[in-house]
């Protein structure tokens, strides 16, 4: 290929386009399959972008800075999770205590079980520390893993990976667990799989989405506070 065209293909413009086209393809698939659980738009988008930078031999760091324009909006979108919660605030009545207790106990369970399962199966300490924070939303997972001495970008990959898995299987799992209160369903998914899980719940039902956003936020708080404490015992 001509050098100037190859440069164009590696430019932020082209990399942004590939990412958006991958995402649109994912949305198209989601619509075509009638919202099938497996058809989460994030998957084809990551696949298309990962394939493109591998073929074009673009550094991940270069891709990351090229797509900062997209990643930037995660912050304001997280702030916006207050909106469904505001619209569903009446449903907080009689649920505040169960909600707070459940999120704190759940956060401790997530952290301790991830570390212990990895340890039993022979992971080294750096990997255990990287796994500890994966239930938290990516910015929290990155910051906490850094402080612990794990691998921050890998922690983000774990967090996103479990978010995708959860977006696919969480509603069916909640049915198996016979959790039928929409508030508890949303809360549980948000607490263990942050924004990606919350996005699936927002599609399912506004109450579930609202409580998933709340679960994500409170879980981020609880994990931030618990990780330094539990680290004293675990490592």
């Amino acid at each position, binding site marked *: 290929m001509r050098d100037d065209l190859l440069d164009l293909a590696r430019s932020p413009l082209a990399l942004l386009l590939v990412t958006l086209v991958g995402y649109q393809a994912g949305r198209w698939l989601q619509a075509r399959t009638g919202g099938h659980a497996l058809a989460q738009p*994030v998957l084809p988008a*990551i696949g298309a*972008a990962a394939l493109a*930078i591998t073929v074009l031999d673009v550094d*991940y760091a270069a891709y990351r800075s090229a797509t*900062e324009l997209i990643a930037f*909006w*995660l912050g*304001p*979108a*997280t*702030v*916006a999770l*207050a*909106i*469904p919660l*505001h*619209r569903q605030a009446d449903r907080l009545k*009689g649920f505040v205590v*169960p*909600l707070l*207790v*459940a999120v704190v*106990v759940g*956060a401790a369970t997530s*952290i301790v079980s*991830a*570390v212990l399962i*990895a340890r039993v199966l022979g992971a080294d300490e750096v*990997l255990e520390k990287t*796994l500890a924070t994966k*239930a938290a*939303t990516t910015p*929290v997972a990155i910051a*906490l893993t850094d402080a612990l001495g794990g691998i921050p*970008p*890998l922690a*983000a*990959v774990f967090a*996103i*990976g*479990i978010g995708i898995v*959860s*977006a696919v299987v969480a509603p069916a799992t909640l*049915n198996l*667990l016979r*959790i*039928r*209160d929409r508030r*508890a369903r949303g*809360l*549980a*998914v948000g607490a*263990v799989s942050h924004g990606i899980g*919350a*996005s699936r719940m927002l599609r399912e039902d506004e109450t579930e989405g609202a409580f998933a956003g709340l*679960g994500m*936020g409170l879980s*981020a708080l609880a994990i931030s506070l618990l990780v*330094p404490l539990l680290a004293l015992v675990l490592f």
Partner: protein
Amino acid sequence: MIAGLTWLLAFQVLGEVLVRVLDVTVPGPVAGMLLLFVFLRLRRYGDDGSIVRAGSALLRHLQLFFVPAGVGVVVYLAVLRDHALPIAAAVLGSWLLGLVVVGWTAVGLERLLGKPRDDLGDPV
């Protein structure tokens, strides 16, 4: 749209200020979300306001904003392959345990407090 985005960015900045002043590891946007919630409650903010319109537009595409970080998987394919079993078991196992614990604790306490809810109606 721009008015709403301006508000959202303002609350994100407020959140960033708050976590710096309090010196906690909570991310600014999460603090911003809690602040915005309080603001919307106090103002009894309506559904047709600019914040709701801009925020709902962003939330429809929440998954898109995770893509750049998710592509980081290409850097760690070797690590993932070499430690596939502990990683898969720890990630999936702790996800399921967390889901069960949060869901059952919340539902169990609701029952204890005498306010159980069943939103799904017919057995699923």
